[in-house]
């Protein structure tokens, strides 16, 4: 009986403490940020809430956030029609600061509700920042904050990033979700590798590989366009891959889903062309070491369908020639991409990681990022591509 009393006593004193109301925050009281844009501060006054000691590689950052307005976010297809179109579901707020967290504090100062980053889907970084000061100081904030998803998108924007926050695409009422949709679908269609934030971090940390990020631009205030991929070295953006180079990159790194339609000249009829769309790809990378130096062989197999042909030459007899031509062109494209990245000294293919994994003894003699960059810049590549044309659509000729 005594034990029961003890138990009852402890319960009365402790259980009211344990009901867990500290973190209760109604959804209406959250300042849910869906998208963030990071721009450099040009000339304007930089507000500085965290004290004068706040310093980072950049002079200052301008954060532009898309805050969801509770009740106006269409939750499902049924609710899409509610609310007049003039009522925007998001509110765009911006603040400046010496560091990202400093700017974030400034943002909080303007928002009545507590900033909540658990739904942050996209972080856009102005290319100017990515080029000059790099994104090391930007990503630390993201890494430290427990609310940030590893599956969020970190995107480099050509031109001002805050424009993308204000863009009002017609297809989706929430601009950020449209941008997310654009990126997600590009991955699904095989137009872009799945380069989310967590992937960027893993690759950035690795000594033998350099990260890539999606590269977008905003046009006419409304259209968000995927420009390709931004290549990094040492945390700085060093260049960009256009969509065709992105296709070559994906061919070389064994990304199964293929989605680009690429035009090749029609054999024997240089005035006309065929467009081939990849369906499936496989590739293997082999690194050879002959005691003196390294060389790389990339073998890829691409399965394609014929999507369009111009001119009158029937396609059925020309299939082997088209395949040959496409194979050669693709191999050439790959080599050109390699040349380009070697110019940047950015090993986006992860050849260094391959060497580290397969030949640890050799890697011991390299072991630093800088040394590997030097080796990569002059690494001989050989590309071997085999294109298989499988189908030609509903047309027989």
């Amino acid at each position, binding site marked *: 009986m005594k034990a029961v009393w003890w138990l009852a006593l402890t319960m009365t004193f*402790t259980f009211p403490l*344990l009901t867990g109301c500290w973190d209760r925050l109604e959804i209406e009281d959250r300042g849910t940020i869906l998208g963030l844009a990071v721009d450099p501060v040009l000339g304007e006054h930089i507000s500085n809430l965290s004290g004068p000691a706040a310093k980072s590689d950049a002079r200052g950052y301008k954060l532009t956030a898309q805050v969801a307005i509770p009740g106006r976010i269409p939750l499902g297809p049924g609710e899409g029609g509610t609310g007049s179109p003039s009522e925007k579901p998001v509110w765009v707020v911006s603040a400046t600061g010496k560091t990202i967290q400093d700017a974030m504090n400034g943002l909080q100062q303007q928002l009545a509700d507590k900033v909540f980053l658990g739904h942050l889907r996209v972080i856009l970084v102005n290319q100017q920042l990515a080029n000059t000061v790099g994104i090391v100081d930007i990503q630390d904030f993201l890494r430290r904050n427990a609310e940030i*998803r590893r*599956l969020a998108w970190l995107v480099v924007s050509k031109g001002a990033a805050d424009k993308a926050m204000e863009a009002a695409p017609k297809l989706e009422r929430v601009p950020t979700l449209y941008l997310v949709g654009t990126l997600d679908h590009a991955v699904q269609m095989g137009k872009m590798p799945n380069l989310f934030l*967590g992937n960027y971090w893993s690759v950035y940390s*690795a000594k033998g590989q350099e990260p890539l990020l999606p590269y977008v631009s905003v046009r006419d205030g409304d259209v968000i366009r995927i420009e390709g991929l931004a290549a990094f070295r040492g945390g700085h953006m060093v260049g960009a891959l256009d969509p065709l180079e992105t296709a070559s990159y994906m061919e070389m790194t064994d990304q199964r889903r293929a989605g680009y339609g690429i035009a090749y000249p029609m054999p024997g009829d240089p005035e006309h062309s065929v467009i081939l769309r990849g369906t499936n790809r496989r590739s293997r990378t082999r690194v050879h070491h002959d005691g003196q130096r390294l060389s790389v062989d990339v073998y890829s197999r691409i399965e394609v369908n014929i999507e369009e042909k111009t001119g009158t030459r029937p396609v059925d007899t020309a299939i082997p020639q088209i395949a040959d031509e496409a194979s050669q062109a693709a191999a050439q494209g790959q080599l050109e991409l390699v040349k380009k990245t070697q110019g940047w000294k950015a090993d986006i293919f992860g050849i260094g990681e391959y060497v580290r*994994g*397969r030949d640890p003894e050799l890697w011991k003699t390299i072991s630093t990022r800088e040394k590997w960059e030097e080796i990569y810049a002059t690494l001989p590549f050989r590309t071997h591509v085999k294109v298989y044309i499988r189908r030609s659509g509903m047309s027989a000729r």
Partner: protein
Amino acid sequence: MNKPKSVTSLQLTFSIGTSIIGVGILAFPRITISLADTGAPMTAVFAVLCAMLGGLVLVHLGLAYQDETLFEYADHLVGRILGGVFLFAIGVYFLELSALATREFGEVVVTSVLQRTPIPVTVLVIVLLVVVASRNDVAKFTRILTFYMPIVYFPALVIVALSLKNAKVANLMPLLATFHDVPFQNTVLSTGIVTALFQNFMIAGIVIPFMYQPQRAKKSVLVGIGLGGALYVLLIYSALSVFGTEEMKNLLWPTLELAKTAAMPTFFLERLDPIFLAVWVTAVFCAIYAAYYLSIQAFSHVLRFQDHRALCFMGMPLVFTLARLPSNIVDLYTVTKMWGLIGLTLTFGYPLLLFLIHLVKSRHVAAKKRPRRVGTTS
């Protein structure tokens, strides 16, 4: 002392398997990989083997003294005074171990989920749960652990399966780094650190005398440690394949980040980490429960209590105070690492010592018997 036979061999397996999965699973990939690079998964395998060896020693002793717990036969083997000293050390050790685990649990919760909840409250909840549950007898203790076994294992396996999408084989290479790249002492240290996470297998020492069929304890202990060990090895392999060694060193809790990286494809749940954390609490509870239970049982034996229940609540303020001691998160991990390694001498060394004494004693007894038998035949 006759003990009620109430534990099946399957219960022992599951109890061990559940009790060795604790808070440690969140941080151990970082700690081991920063020591042993890609050789770390291999050291986890070594650690499983070490723990199995330790388990075998316990089983052997348990079979030799089928009706006695580890604490009881220790008294016979080394005497009550020395046994009491060792036992007191074990009690203190597991008490601090459970305190460190509750603190680590509190840190994870306060950093990633309940940011405004004061950490003492989080710690108090788990300590209270453990204390109330530890009032049960050994039979109920094993039943509680057995019951939670699927809840502890299933989510971790789901996370592993879903994160495979982002896995890269190149990150795992070189597979056998332990044998050429990593300094030997780092391999040993890393193995030791993982082995230290398996120390709750000591519960076998107090459960075996309660078994229906103690002769099956060997298999149970081995399979139990194997199950838990397999989960550890699986987790470190998948974390390594997703993050790679360099990124791993940046992540405070790689397993939690793994849960953040895993996404249900085309499902209404986009983030799995809150769910993983919610279920992970169960694993934490089970591990702390086992450690605390061991500690309380040890103390009650030292103090010659008839029933361990009186001590349960007395241990609570102790655990609570010990959990407050580390000043920050870096400190916490330094202390946890050191404490785990020091404890290995106790949790492995002590049974081994007992085993040796047992061997010498039984040899001695046999030697005494033999000449007498020779004498009667001549």
